[in-house]
């Protein structure tokens, strides 16, 4: 089974499915097989959302436990939660900005220190790229493009068997023209972050 398993995790409304679909669309365009499993419905109302993306020759759209090659976490706690899919060779990209769940505000379990979360990730997997994607997107002037920054970072790892140009072409087919330039910048900035590391 030659496949690349990409697990994407975050909070409803962060553009998780959109981000993963862009990779899948680009893969199909490049002649690489792709299947995805998505979460729709009530879980999207601020709850944890995950999306499984598998490139290559597989049938199941869901990644087995411990078989993710790349994890893209849109929120630090959600990244840690998704580590059941990881093994010691997994590469992890994570947003560093927390999104505090209501359960914490209402006096439940405290939100763990982000440094502690990152240290745990680093102790478990092959590589961790901690990225201020939301801050980068804000700087570009398109806060909703944090997912594209993370997408660029995923491409920067070199794990995804696709050309950056193919991703750009896919973006240009799915994003309104007026937002395209900012999205290209978000993609490139993310790409540079992981390539520099």
């Amino acid at each position, binding site marked *: 089974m030659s496949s690349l398993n990409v697990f994407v995790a975050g909070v409803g409304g962060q553009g998780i499915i959109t981000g993963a679909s862009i990779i899948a669309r680009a893969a199909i365009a490049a002649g690489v097989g792709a299947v995805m499993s998505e979460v729709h419905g009530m879980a999207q109302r601020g709850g944890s959302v995950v999306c499984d993306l598998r490139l290559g020759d597989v049938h199941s759209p869901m990644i087995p436990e411990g078989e993710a090659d790349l994890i893209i976490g849109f929120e630090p706690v959600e990244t840690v939660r998704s580590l059941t899919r990881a093994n010691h060779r997994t590469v992890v990209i994570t947003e560093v900005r927390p999104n505090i769940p209501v359960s914490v505000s209402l006096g439940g*379990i405290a939100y763990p220190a982000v440094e502690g979360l990152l240290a745990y990730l680093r102790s478990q997997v092959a590589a961790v790229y901690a990225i201020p994607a939301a801050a980068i997107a804000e700087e570009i002037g398109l806060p909703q493009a944090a997912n594209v920054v993370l997408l660029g970072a995923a491409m920067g790892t070199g794990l995804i068997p696709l050309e950056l140009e193919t991703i750009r072409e896919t973006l240009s087919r799915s994003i309104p023209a007026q937002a395209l330039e900012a999205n290209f910048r978000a993609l490139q900035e993310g790409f540079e972050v992981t390539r520099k590391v």
Partner: protein
Amino acid sequence: MKHQALVDGKAGDHELLLGNEAAVRGALEAGIGVAASYPGTPSSEIGDVFSVVAKASGVYFEYSANEKVALEVAAASAASGVRSFTFMKHVGLNVASDSFMTTAYIGTRAGFVVLSADDPSTHSSQNEQDNRYYARLANVPMLEPSNPQETKDYMVEAFDISEKLELPVLLRTTTRVAHMRGDVVFGDRRPVVRKGVFEKDPPRFVPVPANSSKMHVKLLGKLGEARHLSEMTSLNRIVDVGAGGRAGIVTVGSAFNYVVDALEELGLSARVFKIGFSYPLPLDRIREFAAGVDELLVVEELEPLMELDIKADFLSHGTRTPVRGKEELLVPRVHELNVDVVAKALANHFGVPLHVPASGRVEPWSSPLPSRPPVLCPGCPHRGSYLAVRRAIRELGIPEPVFASDIGCYTLGMAAPFSAADYLLSMGSSVGTAGGFEVATDRQVFSFIGDSTFFHAGLSALASAIHNKHRFVLTILDNRTTAMTGHQPNPSMLTDAVGDPAPAISIEAVAKAMGVPFVKVINPYRVVEATEAYKEAAKVDGVAVIVSKQVCSLLLDRAKRAKGIWQTFQVDRGVCSGCLICVREAACPAIFVSEGKAEINEELCDGCSVCSQICPVHAIGVKK
């Protein structure tokens, strides 16, 4: 236009499609003229796509008030010679089942396909019932695809089979097929036939007792023909994994995907009988298949339906091949399967060790992580309604009431601090169960139902409650949409499923016309007024209806952003006393605690102002 490719795509084109999007393309390739539905996850995107493409593809599409009405629209249209499609979530077929059962008796003229999207593991449902029973209950053929490509292809097959047998065909998907995205190669589109002729034939279409007893005999004859088609079809096929060999597996739907991947992961070979036409089963071919293998493992999600059919058939034919599956707990009977669960079953069955990732598993995070269940969105109007109800109850000193809830985003009111969902059965059940609690307890009853759910199944329940002199407060949460499933229209709105103007039915006018003694419309963003309204309603001797009218914040935010009108709130830390009433009573995702005082996340705040109204020291104001 979004989804343009579904309309214009030519045979041979490739598209990356969600299973539900592929179902629409399949319906268009089959040349349907009419589609009708009521939204429900995991089937909702089928309707979302039809809303966009119906006009451009020459198809009539409607959101009916509920699944039963949708099925009836499609059945009558198919009886008139127009290929027709209705689709719903699994529990939607419960609602439609009364008419569905009879469509099997009276049959159809043009193709008539009923898609049921089941939800094993209850990702977004109140149960995980196995709707494959409905094919057996109604005696209709059933197809089960494994992926988006098959979903499209099987739709076309389903219409052909339906027309050939003059029977409705059930196409059953599950969440993992409906919400799987994959490459789909298109076929040709058959021309749309939008209008037919209804040729009257009462002995065939009117199941009065004299006719219906004959219909049942005829139906069983058709089921025999269906069995013949199932024996012949390539939808039921043998797939050799690895070297094939003498290990046999029978599987269906998404379980097929897991079986193939798990076999490869474990490095095992097997002959896999992939079932696509799953009722009636091709039992002759399965028996023949079993003769060439040492043992037969049946891998299916939820109920052991194929397993028991196969065991019964083998028993009556003296087939000695052992059949294993759920009866000996090899394959679980609850929740959806996946590669891990199937690999475990296969490892047990074949007596081989489980696969472990080469580099070893990671250590889990040592302490519990904060949970992140779905919550009411920032600015959600339901927050204001629940907050006002809780305040009214407190201010009047009402002993803890019973909260009868219903199906929608507002079921999230179950969580603290509102704790306003104590009992829930199904769409519309808040109204009927409110009467039951009122009759059987001394507690006051508050029930909640959404606008769409009210038209779905609340109307007749309300008539019943009024006539039987029940006493409870019914809130109709009128957020001007069917929010939870993705903002589909409902009969209280000014536009229909395809965006055309439509007569809007006023909920308050309906309630008044039915004779409700107390009807009040509130704006849930006005905390004091809303609380006063509930205090009045709680004293009414009869059914009191509060229509809490405020558009879903997700829609309102979109509109406000488009118009450039946007305000957020902030906490003046110098004024904030740290009482945290805003946190405890509103439980808004935008409010968090920082060093003992409330803070507002500007990114999440939608400017609804509810928190600013409940702050006792007026520390929350519009951010300048």
